[in-house]
């Protein structure tokens, strides 16, 4: 009965977001036509959460809520990136959802709760909180995909996402229960200790690990658990696709780090080989399948699969034959990769949102034809994004790939690095095809591009950041290194 009131200070950002969500809910319920108020309140929530996170960041690893919540530098940086990307997503999609009449307080509520879910996942030190954060995120996303109720495609996508997502959650839970059975704890740090002390036979642990990795792979969207990605990306409204494609990847990375590195590091040899298998398949399938896609949303979906595969390469090369020297570099390169991927996805879907207008969704290659003639500025921005995604020097995407490959080579998997480079070359084909279509084809649609100034500025900043960080990747690298330093 000796219960001490937990320390709320480290979780101040989450508490702030929850409190603000109630404010948004209440204003949305009781004020008429409060959509733009909801929008600004949501943006304020994200900004406030960022301020709180920065303010409470002390560079220590703090556990609270009976060790279920962990506050460390990696969590803080991932969260900051989540706020940034969600805020950008909302900014980009405002006019899109306004045109399609799906803008509502509920939409913003779901986005806030998805953000909260990501924060919880990133800060989880316990299977329960990890799972609840994941469900909070997924449930909000399922509903968001279905917001366009009259679109059969969106409903179908939501259904697929929901059914497969439920299956993945089931796998994850099953794995967690196995791990619980084998270690007697749900707390990640205790599990790590239990595995360390246990030694000997690891059959049950392995059994649980397989299921946990499968569930994780689904959330990351890597082969062979990628089936939902193309359909959901294509079916969902572009604004929601943008959300699904960006911030949740950060959360999934955080979850992978918590589960595999904080919890199951002793089993690194085993999960590394599993992840390697997934990574190789994803890079191959993602890049090859993307070539055949005329639909840009679908193509970006496949490209996302290959990018996540690439990110996994970073996680794969952490431990070599029990030697942990490479771990720091490898994991920070993976984190850098996620950061840069999120930046690029935001801009890529941002351009699609710019080109869409009421009654028209820009989503095929055709729609990009001759973009240079319609707006050379946006065509330039899109070109930057595509170059960066293809991994052409000196954009951020190049450094991301480069650092991951360095880690892979350092850990001795030279063939893997060669394979990844080959596949990236194949991938470059479809990215460059987009550039070719924009600059060398005749436009089929000459209607002017009308976008709010805020969005133009944000999109330009986003694309320029991709270019600029490509030239000065140092401080992002530094952030990733600092975050990872704490885990070891």
């Amino acid at each position, binding site marked *: 009965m000796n219960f001490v009131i937990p320390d709320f200070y480290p*979780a101040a950002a989450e508490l702030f977001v929850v409190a603000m969500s109630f404010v948004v809910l209440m204003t949305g319920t009781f004020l008429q036509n409060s959509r733009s108020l909801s929008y600004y309140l949501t943006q304020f929530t994200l900004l406030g959460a960022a301020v709180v996170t920065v303010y409470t960041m002390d560079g220590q690893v703090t556990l609270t809520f009976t060790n279920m919540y962990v506050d460390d530098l990696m969590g803080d940086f991932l969260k900051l990136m989540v706020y940034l990307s969600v805020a950008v997503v909302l900014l980009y999609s405002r006019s899109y959802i306004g045109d399609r009449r799906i803008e509502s307080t509920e939409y913003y509520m779901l986005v806030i709760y998805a953000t909260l879910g990501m924060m919880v996942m990133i800060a989880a030190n316990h299977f329960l*909180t990890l799972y609840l954060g994941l469900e*909070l995120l997924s449930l909000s996303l399922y*509903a968001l995909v279905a917001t366009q109720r009259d679109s059969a495609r969106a409903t179908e996508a939501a259904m697929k996402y929901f059914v497969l997502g439920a299956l993945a959650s089931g796998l994850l839970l099953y794995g967690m229960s196995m791990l619980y059975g*084998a270690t007697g704890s749900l707390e990640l740090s205790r599990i790590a200790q239990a595995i360390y002390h246990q030694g000997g036979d690891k059959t049950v642990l392995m059994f649980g690990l397989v299921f946990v990795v499968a569930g994780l792979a689904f959330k990351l969207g890597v082969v062979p658990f990628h089936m939902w990605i193309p359909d959901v990306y294509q079916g969902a409204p572009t604004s929601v696709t943008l959300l699904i494609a960006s911030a949740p990847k950060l959360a999934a990375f955080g979850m992978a780090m918590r589960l595999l590195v904080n919890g199951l590091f002793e089993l690194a040899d085993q999960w590394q080989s599993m992840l390697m298998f997934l990574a190789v398949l994803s890079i191959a399938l993602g890049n090859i399948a993307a070539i055949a896609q005329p639909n840009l949303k679908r193509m970006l979906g496949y490209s996302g699969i290959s990018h996540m595969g690439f990110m996994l390469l970073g996680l794969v090369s952490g431990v070599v034959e029990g030697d942990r020297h490479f771990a720091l570099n490898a994991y920070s390169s993976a984190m850098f990769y996620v950061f840069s991927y999120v930046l690029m996805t935001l801009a890529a879907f941002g351009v699609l949102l710019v080109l869409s207008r009421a009654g028209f969704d820009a989503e095929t290659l055709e729609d990009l034809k001759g973009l240079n003639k319609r707006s050379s500025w946006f065509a330039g921005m899109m070109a930057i994004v595509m170059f960066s995604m293809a991994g052409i020097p000196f954009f951020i995407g190049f450094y991301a790939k480069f650092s991951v490959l360095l880690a892979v080579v350092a850990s001795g998997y030279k063939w893997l690095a060669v394979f990844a480079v080959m596949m990236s070359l194949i991938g470059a084909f479809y990215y460059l095809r987009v550039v070719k279509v924009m600059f060398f084809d005749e436009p089929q649609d000459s209607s002017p591009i009308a976008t709010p100034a805020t969005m133009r500025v944000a999109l330009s900043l986003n694309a320029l950041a991709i270019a600029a960080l490509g030239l000065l990747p140092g401080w992002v690298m530094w952030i990733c290194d600092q975050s990872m330093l704490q885990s070891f």
Partner: protein
Amino acid sequence: MDFQAVVFYFLATVVVLASLRVITAKNPVHAALFLVLAFFSAGGIWMLLHAEFLAIALVMVYVGAVMVLFLFVVMMLDINLERIRQGFWSYLPIGALIGILMLAEMVVVLGSRYFGLEHVPQPAEFPAGYSNTKELGRLLYTDYVYPFELASIVLLVAMIAAVALTLRKRKSVKALDPAKQIAVKRDDRVRIVSMDAEKK
């Protein structure tokens, strides 16, 4: 075999048979009702394990609320079973293969001595007057308050999502608003005019 064991085997048999019928019953309403039976018997098994709160909560939440709504929906749907069953035989080989593989894996892992239950300490005997419900309540609101509150937010999201996906304001509907009807005062409907008496 003592009384508890008999009850356990009885309940367990019912759970297994009912669960089998859930997936084999041709009529979806029957399947749902068998699921109810399975939940109910599972509640009984939990009761045997002295988890009376969980057992009752299972019956209350799943049997009393979730499955009622589920039945509600299933009864209203006109499910064409013939069409759903098409392709059953073509999917059977691969489905059976996966099933057998998973079963084999589970048997290898769980059926062996590797599960290592011996290093998990036996739970302590309950002292007299031990209340499962009280203990659960204490834990939920102290040690597990964070996941507990998160779970409540997950439910809130489900509620918001349900509202967002189903609430439509249609202008053409002539539904009455009970709140407005109740708020009506006599003066809104009837006006009493005093008139002078008239001569014939």
